[in-house]
C-alpha cells in the first residue's frame, strides 16, 4: 500500500492527486438547453445537415422523456435533481484553428498533461501508443495518425470524422445506441460536442493500441463524449480509454455514449480506467458519470469490455453486448471501487440472439467508507439463440461497516438449450487472512493491499500492460486510508 498511511487515519481518504485547474480562455455557450443551443453547437462544429437533423431528433426524444417519465430513478444511487438548464453545453479551448504539430498546442495545456504523467512526445517515442487528447470537447492534438493511415485505419476526433468521412458516420452513428435508447443517451445524442472515431477496414489488424484521454476543464460544462468504433470483417482493434479530472466543488455531469460495431470475425477490445474526481471525503462535489456503452457482434465476432472504475461521485454504466451473430462472444471484466460517499451502479447486459453465442461476466466490487456499490446485469437468451452459454461471477468485498454492496442480476432464458451459471458472493477480508499475512511479516496495509489486488486479479490480467500498472496504482490511491 502507499507510503504515508497509518492506522490512525482510518477512513481519511488520500487527497486527489490530479486536482488542479488549467486557466484557458474558453469559448463557452450560454447555459441552457433548447433547440437554439443545438443549432449553435452544430453550426459551431460546421456539421452537415444530416447531423443537425439527427441531433434535433434526439433532442425531441429527450424532451418527451423529460415530460413523460423524468430522470430515470431505477438505479441504486441517490443525487439531487440536475438542472439541465443551468449547464453550458459547449466549450472549446481558445484556439480553434487546425493544429499540425505539438508546438502549436497551448503550452499551459501541455503542462497539464505533463502533471498527469502523459507527456505526448515521450509517449510517442517510448510506447508507440497513438494519443488523441480530448481537452474540453475539442481535440487539440492527434498523433500517429499517418502511421495508422498507412494501415488503412481511420482514427480521429469525432468532429473531424463528421467532416472527412460523413458517409461512415451516417451509416453507423446511432445503429447500436439509438437516440431514443435512454434518457442520458438521448441527451448525449442531442448535445455531444466531440469524441473519437475509429474505423478498421476489412482484414486489418490495427498496428497499435489506441488510446484517448478525456479531461473536464471548464467549470459548469457538462462533457458529452461520443465514441464510435467500427471493425469490419476480420478486423481487430484494441482501444484504451482513461480519464482524470481536476478538483471541483460543483457536481459536473458526464454523459457519454460508446458504440462498437464488430462485423463477421472481427474483434474489439475496449479497456477503460475511469478516475474522474470522486468528490471530497464528505461527499461534496464529484463527477456524475452516466454512460451508455454497447456493442454489436456479428458472426464469430468478439467484443470484450474491461473496466476499472475508481473515480466519480456516481457511476452509472452498463457496457453491453448484443450477440447477434452465430458463435459470437461477449466478455465483461470489471473492477469498481467506491470509497467515502461514492456510489456506483454498474454491470452489463449480454443479449444472446445468435446460435452458440457465448458470454462471460466477471465483476468485482469493492466498497469502503460510506461507498455504495451495486452490480446490475442482464443475461438474456432469446428463443433463437440455441446452444447459448453464459458464465457470470460477481464478487463484492466490504471494507468498513458503513458501506454497502449490492447485486441485482437479471437472468432471462427463453431457450431450453441455453445454459447459464451465475454466482455471487459478498464478504469482508477475513481476519484470519490478515493474521496469516502479519505472521509472515507483512504490515496490515500491505496485507490488505495484497488481498485486494488478488481479489481483482482476474480482471487486471485482461487489461493491456500499461493499464494494468496504472489500475493497480489507482486502486491503492483510491482505497488509501480506508484500509489503514
Amino acid at each position, binding site marked *: 500500500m502507499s507510503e504515508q498511511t497509518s492506522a490512525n487515519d482510518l477512513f481519511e481518504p488520500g487527497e486527489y492527486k490530479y486536482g488542479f485547474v488549467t486557466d484557458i480562455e474558453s469559448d463557452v455557450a450560454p447555459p441552457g438547453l433548447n433547440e437554439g443551443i443545438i443549432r449553435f453547437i452544430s453550426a459551431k462544429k460546421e456539421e452537415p445537415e444530416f447531423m443537425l437533423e439527427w441531433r434535433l431528433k434526439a433532442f425531441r426524444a429527450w424532451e418527451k422523456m423529460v415530460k413523460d417519465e423524468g430522470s430515470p430513478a431505477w438505479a441504486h444511487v441517490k443525487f439531487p435533481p440536475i438542472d439541465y438548464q443551468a449547464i453550458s453545453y459547449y466549450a472549446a479551448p481558445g484556439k480553434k484553428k487546425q493544429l499540425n504539430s505539438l508546438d502549436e498546442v497551448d503550452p499551459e495545456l501541455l503542462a497539464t498533461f505533463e502533471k498527469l504523467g502523459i507527456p505526448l512526445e515521450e509517449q510517442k517515442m517510448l510506447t508507440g501508443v497513438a494519443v488523441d487528447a480530448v481537452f474540453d470537447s475539442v481535440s487539440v492534438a492527434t498523433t500517429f495518425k499517418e502511421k495508422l493511415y498507412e494501415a488503412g485505419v481511420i482514427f480521429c476526433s469525432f468532429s473531424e470524422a463528421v467532416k472527412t468521412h460523413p458517409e461512415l458516420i451516417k451509416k453507423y452513428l446511432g445503429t447500436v445506441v439509438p437516440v431514443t435508447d435512454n434518457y442520458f443517451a438521448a441527451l448525449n445524442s442531442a448535445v455531444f460536442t466531440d469524441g473519437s472515431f475509429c474505423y478498421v477496414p476489412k482484414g486489418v489488424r490495427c498496428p497499435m493500441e489506441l488510446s484517448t484521454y478525456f479531461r473536464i476543464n471548464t467549470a459548469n460544462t457538462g462533457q458529452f463524449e461520443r465514441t464510435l468504433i467500427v471493425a469490419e470483417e476480420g478486423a481487430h482493434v484494441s482501444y484504451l480509454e482513461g480519464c482524470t479530472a481536476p478538483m471541483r466543488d460543483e457536481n459536473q455531469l458526464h454523459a457519454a455514449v460508446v458504440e462498437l460495431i464488430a462485423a463477421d470475425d472481427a474483434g474489439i477490445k475496449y479497456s477503460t480506467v475511469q478516475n474522474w474526481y470522486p468528490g471530497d471525503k464528505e461527499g461534496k462535489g464529484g463527477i456524475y458519470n452516466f454512460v451508455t456503452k454497447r456493442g454489436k457482434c456479428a458472426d464469430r465476432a468478439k467484443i470484450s469490455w474491461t473496466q476499472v472504475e475508481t473515480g466519480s461521485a456516481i457511476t452509472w454504466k452498463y457496457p453491453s453486448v*448484443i450477440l447477434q451473430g452465430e458463435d459470437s462472444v461477449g466478455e465483461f471484466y470489471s473492477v469498481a471501487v467506491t470509497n467515502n460517499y461514492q456510489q456506483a451502479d454498474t454491470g452489463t447486459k449480454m443479449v444472446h440472439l445468435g446460435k452458440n453465442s457465448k458470454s462471460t461476466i466477471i465483476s468485482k466490487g469493492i466498497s469502503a467508507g460510506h461507498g455504495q456499490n451495486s452490480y446490475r446485469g442482464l443475461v438474456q437468451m432469446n428463443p433463437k439463440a440455441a446452444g447459448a452459454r453464459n458464465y457470470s461471477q460477481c464478487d463484492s468485498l466490504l471494507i468498513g461497516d458503513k458501506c454497502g454492496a449490492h447485486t441485482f442480476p437479471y437472468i432471462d432464458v*427463453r431457450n*431450453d438449450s441455453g445454459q447459464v451459471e451465475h*454466482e*455471487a458472493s*459478498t464478504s469482508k477480508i477475513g481476519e484470519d487472512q490478515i493474521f496469516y499475512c502479519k505472521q509472515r511479516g507483512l504490515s496490515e496495509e500491505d496485507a490488505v493491499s495484497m488481498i485486494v489486488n488478488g481479489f481483482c486479479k482476474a480482471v487486471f490480467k485482461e487489461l493491456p500492460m500499461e493499464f494494468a500498472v496504472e489500475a493497480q496504482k489507482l486502486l491503492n490511491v483510491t482505497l488509501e486510508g480506508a484500509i489503514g
Partner: protein
Amino acid sequence: MAIAGSKKKWAPRRYSRRIFLATSAQAKQGFLDAHERFFAADPRVADNSDVHTRVAELRRIGIERFGMLAFPGPKNEDWKYTSVASLVAADFDPAPAARSEIPVDRVSAIIDAAVSDQSAQVLVFVDGSPIAELSRNLDEVDTAVCVMSFEQAATENPKLLSENLGQFLDTNAHGFTALNSAFLSAGAVVFVSAGKHAARPVHLVFVGGVQDKSVSHPRTLIIAEPGSSATVAEHYVGLPDSSYLANAATEIVLGRGARLSHCKLQREAAGAFHVARIQVHQGEGSEFVSHAVAVGARLSRTEIHVALDAPEASCSLYGLYALEGDAHADHHTVIDHAQPRTRSTELYKGIMDGRSRGVFTGRVLVRPDAQKISASQSNSNLLLGAGAVAETRPQLEIYADDVQCNHGATIGRLDEDALFYMRQRGIGPGPAKRMLTLAFAAEVTEHIADPHLRASAERAVHERVEHAVLGGNDGADAVHGSGGVARDRGNGGAS
C-alpha cells in the same frame, strides 16, 4: 427490454399496455363497487366488539390502499416478469361468494387426495368460507395447538384476533394484499401455546372453483408462542375445469425460541389464478422453515417475506415449481436481516415443460449494523420444453460488513453426460429423463420433515413430471393432471 425489440415489435406492446390499463381499471372498479355494496352496511360492524372494530378498520385501510395501488402494471419492477393482464381480463365476480350447494363427493375426494393422513386436524374452506362438515378432528382436545376459524376465534379468544390480525402484513406492497384486507371476512387461526410441541401437522385446505368465476381471499394467522413448535400446511386446491381467483394472505408470528415448519402446496385447477403472500415476523432465536410447492394454476404468484427481527433468528426457505402447458409461476422472496447474528438459507428449484414460464426473485437484505450475518441462496432451473422460459433475479443488498452472503443461479437442461451414462447401462431415454428430473426435485422435497406432507408434495411433483416427461406437451391432456385431482398413475414406476 428495449434492446432486442425492433420498432415493429414496439407498437403492439404499447397497444396491449393501453388495453391492460383499461381492463385493469375496469376490474378495479368492479372490486371497489362490490366492496361498497357488501361492507358499507355490514351489520356486524355495528356491534362494537374489539374484533369487529379491528376487522372493519382493516377493511377500510385495505380498500383505501387498493384504490391507490390497483393491480400491479407492467411498470412495476417487482412484477416485471409476471403480467396480470389475463387475470384482470378474466371477468371474475368480485362479490364474496355466496354459500351455494357444494358437490360434497367431489370436494371430499379432492380433500382426501390432499391430506391422506385421516387422523390429522383439517380445517376446510370452500370458496373462502369455512365448512365445518368437511373439516376433520377439530374437536379433539389438543393442549398444544388450537385451530379455529375467525368466527370461532371471535367468540372464544377475541383478544388474540384483535391484537394480532393485520399487525405485520404489509398492505402497501401491491393491490392484491390490500384487496385481501379489504375483503377480509373468513380465515383460519392457528395458535400454538407457549412451550408446547405439536406432535402432528395442522392442515388448512382451501378449495376454490365450486362457483365458477368466484374470487376468494383466504386469510391465515399463525401464532407460535415462545418456545413452542408446530407444523402447519396450507393446501390450495380446486375443482378441475373451473376458473377462479384465490388471493391468499398469511401472517406468521414466531415468539422467542419458537419453531415453525410451514408448508404451502399449491395444486390449483389448471385454469385458476393464485396470488399468495406470506409474511413472517420472527422473535429472538426462533426458527422458521418454509416449503412452497407449486404445480397448478394458470398464473400463480407466491410472495414470502421474512423479517428476522431479533438476534439469532434463522430461516430456511425451500421452493419447488413444476410447470407445463402455458402455466406461469412466480416466486418472490424477501429475507430481511434486520438484526445481528441472523442466518438464512434458501433453495428454490424449477422444472419447466411445454411453454411454461417460471420466475424467481430472491432478495436478501442486510440492514446497517446487522453484523455476523450468514445468508446463502440458490436457484436452479431445468428447462424441459423447447418453449419454456426461466427468469431469475437473485438480489443481495448489503449494508453491513461482517457478513458471509452468496447466491447462485443456474438455468439449463438435463445433463447430456448423465443421460448418456444411464443409457449405456440399459435405461431407456424416458425413464432416464424421469429419474434425473425426479432426483432434481427431490433435493427440495427431501427437506420436508413430516412424512405425510413429504409424500403429498412428492406425489404432486411426480404426477407433473410423469406427465411432462412421458405424456408429451399436448395441451388438452394437460388439464386433468393438475387441479388436485388424485390420479395416482405410474407412482410405482418412479424409482
